[in-house]
C-alpha cells in the first residue's frame, strides 16, 4: 500500500516498537510503586529518564513534561485545565478559526460554561491575522491558543511573533504543535511558549500517548481525577511502554529524513500542477510543513477521488464532509475563504520518511485517470 495519510498517523518506527516490546516484557511494574519494590523504582527511573530527555530536547525541564493519553487530551488539559485554574483572573480566551477539533471543542465547552471566546481569522493561505490578535487581547484575556502548523493544509504560523504579541500583553500562550514538532524545531528556552501539545504517533512514535509541555509556573486544574500521577495533574497510571517508545521516536527522528520528505513534497506539488489541469494548492506555498500537501481538484468531489485512489492501493484523506455525519466541508478550508465546492474537492497528501519518488509517480498516473473519469461525469463542467 502507498500510504499518504501520515498527518493522521504514521507507521511506527521498528526501533520504537522493539524498544517498547523489550520494555513491556521486562518492566511491567507501574512507576507509582516506588515505595513498594525495586521493579517499580526501576520503571520510575526509566520514565524519569525519558521525561528528562524529552524536556531537554524541547529546551525545557524534566518537571515541565506531562504525559497524557493523546494530543487531544493534552489540548483539553492545556485549555480547560488553564481556564478552570485561572478563572478568577479573567474570563476571556482567544484561539483561531482553523485549530484542530480538540481545541475548538474545548473552547466550545468553555463558552457553554460562561467564558468569552474570540476567534482570530486567517488569510486565504491559512496565516492568522496578527493585527487582529493584538487588538483582541484585553485585560480580561487569560489565554491565547494558536497552533504551530495546520493539520490539513500545513501552513506554519509565525509562532515567534505570536509569542511576542502575547507576552507584550503579559498573557499565557498555548501552542498546539501536534502536527508540527519535531518536523519544526521548537526551542522553549528561546521562545516564550507556556503550554505546548505534542503527539508522538505523528512522527513514528506510539499511539495512545500525548505530551503537554507546561512551563513550571503555569497553574492548571486536573481534568481526570484519580491518583497523584503526573505532578498531580492527571490521574491514571502512565502508559509506560508508550513513554519509552516516545523517547525512542525523538531519538531516531532525523533532520535528513525531513529534507528528503521536503524534496518529495515539492516533487508531488510540481507533478500535480504540471500533469493535472484545474487544480489549486491549498495553504501557504512557502511557509508550510515539509510533509503536507493539500490540493483542490476542481469540479469533482473529494470522497470519490479518495475512494478511487484507495482501489489503487493509495491512502489519502479528503476535506469533504462526505466522510462525516455533518454536511459541512472542512472548517479549515472554509475559514481560509475557499468555496464549498473547493473544500469538497480537496485531497490531503501527507508524506513520511517511508514514502518514495516511485510512489508519487504511480500516484500521479492513477490520479490523472481518476480526475479525468470523474470530471467526465461532472455537471459542473456543463457536460464537457
Amino acid at each position, binding site marked *: 500500500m502507498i500510504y499518504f495519510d501520515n498527518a493522521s498517523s504514521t507507521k511506527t518506527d521498528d526501533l520504537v516498537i522493539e524498544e517498547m516490546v523489550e520494555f513491556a516484557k521486562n518492566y511491567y511494574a507501574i512507576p507509582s510503586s516506588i515505595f513498594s519494590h525495586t521493579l517499580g523504582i526501576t520503571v520510575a527511573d526509566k520514565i524519569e529518564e525519558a521525561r528528562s530527555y524529552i524536556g531537554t530536547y524541547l529546551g525545557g525541564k524534566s518537571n515541565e513534561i506531562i504525559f497524557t493519553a493523546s494530543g487531544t487530551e493534552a489540548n483539553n488539559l492545556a485549555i480547560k485545565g488553564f481556564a478552570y485554574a485561572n478563572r478568577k483572573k479573567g474570563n476571556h480566551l482567544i484561539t483561531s478559526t482553523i485549530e484542530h477539533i480538540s481545541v475548538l471543542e474545548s473552547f466550545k465547552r468553555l463558552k457553554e460554561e460562561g467564558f468569552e471566546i474570540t476567534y482570530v481569522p486567517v488569510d486565504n493561505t491559512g496565516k492568522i491575522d496578527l493585527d487582529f490578535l493584538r487588538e483582541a487581547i484585553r485585560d480580561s484575556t487569560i489565554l491565547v491558543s494558536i497552533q504551530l502548523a495546520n493539520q490539513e493544509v500545513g501552513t506554519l504560523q509565525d509562532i515567534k511573533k505570536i509569542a511576542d504579541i502575547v507576552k507584550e500583553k503579559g498573557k499565557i500562550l498555548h501552542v498546539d504543535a501536534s502536527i508540527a514538532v519535531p518536523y519544526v524545531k521548537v526551542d522553549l528556552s528561546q521562545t516564550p511558549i507556556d503550554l505546548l501539545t505534542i503527539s508522538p504517533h505523528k512522527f513514528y512514535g506510539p499511539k495512545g500517548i500525548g505530551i503537554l509541555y507546561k512551563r513550571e509556573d503555569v497553574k492548571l486544574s486536573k481534568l481526570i481525577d484519580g491518583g497523584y500521577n503526573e505532578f498531580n495533574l492527571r490521574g491514571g497510571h502512565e502508559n509506560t511502554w508508550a513513554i519509552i517508545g516516545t523517547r525512542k521516536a525523538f531519538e531516531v527522528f532525523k533532520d535528513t529524513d525531513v529534507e528528503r520528505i521536503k524534496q518529495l513534497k515539492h516533487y508531488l506539488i510540481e507533478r500535480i500542477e504540471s500533469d493535472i489541469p484545474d487544480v489549486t494548492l491549498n495553504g501557504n506555498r512557502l511557509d508550510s510543513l515539509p510533509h503536507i500537501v493539500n490540493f483542490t481538484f476542481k*469540479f*469533482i*468531489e*473529494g*470522497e*470519490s477521488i479518495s*475512494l*478511487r485512489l*484507495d*482501489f489503487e492501493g493509495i491512502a489519502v484523506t479528503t476535506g*469533504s*464532509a*462526505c466522510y462525516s*455525519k455533518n*454536511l459541512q*466541508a472542512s472548517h479549515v478550508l472554509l475559514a481560509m475563504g475557499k*468555496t*464549498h*465546492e473547493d473544500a*469538497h474537492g480537496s485531497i490531503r497528501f501527507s508524506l513520511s520518511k517511508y514514502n518514495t519518488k516511485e510512489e508519487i509517480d504511480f500516484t500521479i498516473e492513477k490520479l490523472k485517470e481518476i480526475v479525468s473519469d470523474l470530471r*467526465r*461525469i*461532472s*455537471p*459542473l463542467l456543463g*457536460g464537457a
Partner: protein
Amino acid sequence: MPIPYTKVVIEHFKNPHNVGVIEDADVKVTEGSPACGDMITLYLKIDPKTNRVVDVKFQSYGCASNIATASIITDLVKGKTLEEAKKITWKDAAEALGGLPSIKVHCSVLAADALHSAVELYYEKNGLLKEKTPTTLEKVFERLSHVINPETGIDIVKSKLIDSISIDNGSITIILNLNENSQFSENIKEEIKERLQYLWDISEVKIIFNN
C-alpha cells in the same frame, strides 16, 4: 471492516451506467448543491406516443453513493412509462444496490428526487397533469429552493437571493437581490424559468434584477 459499500455500489461507482448529456433531451433537471457536496443533472428522452423513457443520462458531482444511486436509477427507469418512473424511490435504488450505509442517505436521495422532478416537469411541459391545482407562492418557493446559486453553492431561497415574488393573472414576477451583471445572473434566470414556465396556469415568468 470492509469499505461500507456493497460490491454492486462499488461496481456502479467505478463504471457508472448512462453517464453523459442528451443534447435534445425532453426534460433536464438538476438537483442538489455543491455546498452539500452532491449534485445530479438528469436528462430524459421520452417517446410521446407511449410516454416511455427511451433514453436517460446523468451527470454527477458527488461521492460514491451518489454516483452509484444515479447509475442504478437510470438503469431502473429505462423503458419504463412515466407513471412507473414516478414510483421509483430511493429505497428501490438502495435495494437494487444491495443496501447503502444509513449516513449516506443524504447523498443518495438526489437521484430519486431528480427523477421525480423530471417527470413532473415533463407532465407540465406537455399538458399531461391530471390534477391542476392553482400555483401558489408556496409552490413557487418550493420550486426555487431547487435552484442553486453557484456563488454560494446554496439554493437561492436559503441564500436570500429572492427579494419578492408575486403571482398575478398567470404571470409570476420575481425580484432578485442580484446584479444583472453578475457572472451567474443568466444561469440563475434560465433555471428559474425552466422550473416555473411550464406550470399549467402560468403564461409568463418575469425576473427582475435588483441591481
